[in-house]
């Protein structure tokens, strides 16, 4: 049985996420997202709710410390969490820790946090790959790989047999034949490869905020898929009325003002898959993000056709994330929903309201383990 504190914990998480107890919302500090702070460094937020109490204002009162230095010397940073100090308002008093994590660890944390299942790669043909592992010992090799202990042992053996080993003066002199080296053993591994194809609507209605959401979301999706597949490729497609393939940087920076034909991106995506990725060997993940506007019903019809005839057959799943924007109608979600329903097996739809919705949306996308 779970300890009752898990219930307190769940309740706290809900309050943090703003699902219950709206009145406590203003006391919540520290968000929920792990923020990358340079390579391998991440800031882990510690959200907390501070109950209002009578307390002292005036932060300039400072604190006390121990150490060297003269009057006027700076101390690094300010006072840490102290009772009866700190100012009201946003950001203050929010706890976070900065830690060093590898992508692996971070992905694991993400997986645990969101309870993501491991992906079952497609049961089709898998790619063979050869990998060298230094697990054996050989008689030839470069000096840098010399195995000292084994070499010593060989010399000792030889000297004992030859009777040149003197117990009083246990000197071991290896000769060329004694040398042993770490040697590689070639292993055949079955690898699975994946490709993620991001498509994003960059028409005028997608603002910076929306793009930031897509960027964050794609960071986490990449992280998780990288964790799951040994070999992963990522392709980017932007579109308004026409689509083109771009690099990552352009993907997040471009802003066009034209109309929106989603089918253009789908067609390009289809072509890319046909050209570069054999569906039998690759796990294919097309992601499409938009605010839900499409030019016409006819175009939407075309989109659905492409999905049905090409994309869905080739890919593990097709994900559509609709970022809420002031201008977007959200119609595309409705159209997809009508056709595939919310819990279709290989079409996953998610609405992302705001930054806080990102984690939930990732869970929706990756929660199926496909």
């Amino acid at each position, binding site marked *: 049985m779970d300890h009752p504190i898990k219930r307190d914990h769940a309740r706290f998480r809900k309050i943090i996420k703003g699902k219950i107890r709206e009145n406590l919302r203003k006391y919540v500090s520290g968000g929920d997202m792990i923020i990358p702070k340079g390579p391998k460094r991440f800031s882990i937020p510690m959200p907390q709710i501070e109950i209002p109490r009578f307390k002292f204002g005036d932060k300039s009162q400072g604190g*006390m410390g121990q150490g060297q230095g003269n009057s006027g010397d700076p101390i690094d940073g300010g006072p840490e969490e102290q009772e009866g100090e700190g100012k009201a308002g946003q950001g203050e008093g929010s706890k976070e820790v900065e830690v060093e994590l590898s992508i692996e660890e971070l992905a694991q944390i993400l997986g645990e946090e969101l309870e993501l299942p491991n992906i079952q790669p497609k049961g089709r043909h898998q790619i063979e790959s050869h990998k060298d592992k230094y697990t054996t010992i050989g008689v030839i090799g470069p000096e840098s790989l010399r195995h000292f202990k084994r070499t010593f042992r060989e010399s000792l053996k030889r000297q004992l047999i030859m009777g040149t080993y003197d117990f009083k003066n246990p000197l071991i002199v290896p000769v060329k034949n004694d040398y042993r080296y770490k040697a590689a053993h070639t292993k055949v591994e079955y690898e699975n490869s994946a490709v993620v194809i991001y498509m994003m609507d960059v028409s005028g209605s997608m603002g910076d905020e929306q793009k930031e959401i897509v960027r964050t979301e794609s960071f986490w999706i990449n992280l998780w898929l990288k964790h799951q597949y040994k070999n992963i490729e990522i392709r980017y497609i932007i579109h308004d009325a026409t689509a083109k393939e771009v690099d990552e940087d352009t993907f997040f920076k471009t802003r066009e003002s034209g109309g929106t034909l989603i089918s253009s991106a789908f067609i390009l995506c289809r072509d890319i898959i046909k050209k570069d990725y054999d569906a039998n060997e690759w796990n294919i993940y097309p992601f499409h993000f938009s605010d839900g506007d499409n030019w016409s019903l006819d175009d939407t019809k075309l989109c659905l056709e492409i999905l049905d005839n090409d994309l869905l057959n080739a890919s593990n799943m097709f994900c559509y994330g609709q970022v809420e924007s002031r201008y977007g109608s959200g119609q595309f979600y409705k159209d997809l929903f009508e056709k595939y329903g919310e819990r279709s097996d290989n079409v996953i739809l998610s609405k992302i309201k705001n930054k806080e919705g990102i984690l939930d949306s990732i869970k929706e996308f990756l929660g199926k383990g496909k």
Partner: protein
Amino acid sequence: MDNTKPLSDDLLKLKKEIRQYAVDYGLSFYEVEFEVCDYDTVNILAAQGGFPTRYPHWRFGMEYDQFSKGYAYGVQKIYEMVINTNPCYAYLLNANHTVDQKIVMAHVYGHADFFKNNSWFSNTNRKMMDVMANHRTKIRRYMEKYGADEVELFIDKILSLENLLDITDLFETREVQRHRQEIDMIASDEKNKTFADDRSEALRSFMKSSYTEQQKKSKKDKIKNKEKEKSQMTEEERERAEADEYAAEHNKHKDSVDDPTKNAAILKVLPRPQRDIMKFLAEHAPITEWQSDVISILREEAYYYLPQRVTKIMNEGWASYWHSRIMTEKSLEASEITDFADHHAGVMQTSRKNLNPYKLGIELFRDIEYRWNTGKFGKEYNECDDIHQKENWDLKLGKGREKIFEVRKGHNDISFIDEYLTQEFCNRNQMFTYKFNPRTNRFEIDTRDFLAIKMKLLSGLTNYGSPVIEVEDANFSNRGELLLAHRHYGVDLDLNYAHDTMKNIWAVWKRPVNLKTKYDNKEIIFIFDGKELRPVA
């Protein structure tokens, strides 16, 4: 808890050994029960203030969230946990190395001795395990009956008041309270008598508020009678009787809810400003019985933790002093020395941003021991001008050990610092104060001046770091409003926080709440009337 285990044979042997060392050194304590548990269990216990059961509330979930994250990311680890009960319960992390377990055990015996012998703990309920469990049952029951959200909402409001405690209450046993009540009664009787003589009966009755002589007398008699009855009762009966009395008292207030001024008229008779605001509200606010009970529950728990809040430096210093002594003089194996030194140093780490209570405490105790061994105290020593002579001062008194035991008995952090922090000590430990320099936009070392350091330390410890706030008048402006007074010792209140806190008090008191304070060097009264906080014109 299911997830804790009793000690294995090895640890049991260690415990016996270390316990014996502690006893030999003269420590005395309630028996310590060690339990071994995994890190998740330790996190749970730590989140719940050391206890296996607490009432359902998100804040324990929040603590748990933080402890778990801290552990998962390797930034913090709970090293040692012990709770002040009889027997004392202490928890050992199963993943710890033997040398760590030893340090923890030795440290825990230090705490256990402090809990038992320091006077600020003299009245704590050592059966808090049961009390906490009862509180949980009660609050759960209220939640079932009145709705979880409703009860939680109310708890949140009351938690706003958790730092408005009266330290002297720690010495308020029932006997003391009764005695005080009687004194108050007699005092007010006499006050009335003295000026009653040369005034007419009519004037007298006009002058008196709702409290008539008659009422007072009868109440006084009643109290006396009850006292008599009670002394013949068993403990259990007495408690029940008190609960009844409490409920009756309470219902009386409930009846008068509709008429705030009538309610207030009774309350007007506040013999002195009340610092125990939770108690005041539990007894006098127009709230339902369960709400009043919730306040009492939270109050009891807050007071249970109060002694630990006012003796943090001493308590940790004392425990560290003893783990250091026991380990280095008795228990350490040669192979464990580096590990011990490493971990001990980790605990003692000083920082330029904060004072480490462990370090400050242990060094002060050592300093006191040293001074009383050598006689470096008192008038003669202080007035000695010869720096050389002072340095080599040694009267060979050998009273150090005796002295620190005496200190650990009678002091709290404030008196401890006030009495024993010396200029030499500050210099030796490189203490300084710092403050924010708006010009350079950074925190900078302010001064190493002894008095300034001491002042800063003491002011931070005053009233356990919380503002002193008292209920001064329960019928302010004769409109049943509450008047709180902030005793201003130099630092203004944060008005944002004050606003939200007063809003919560207002929700309980149900009449406007006033706050008398000083802001920007001006005496000012703020009022919260249910809508906004504004100065009273």
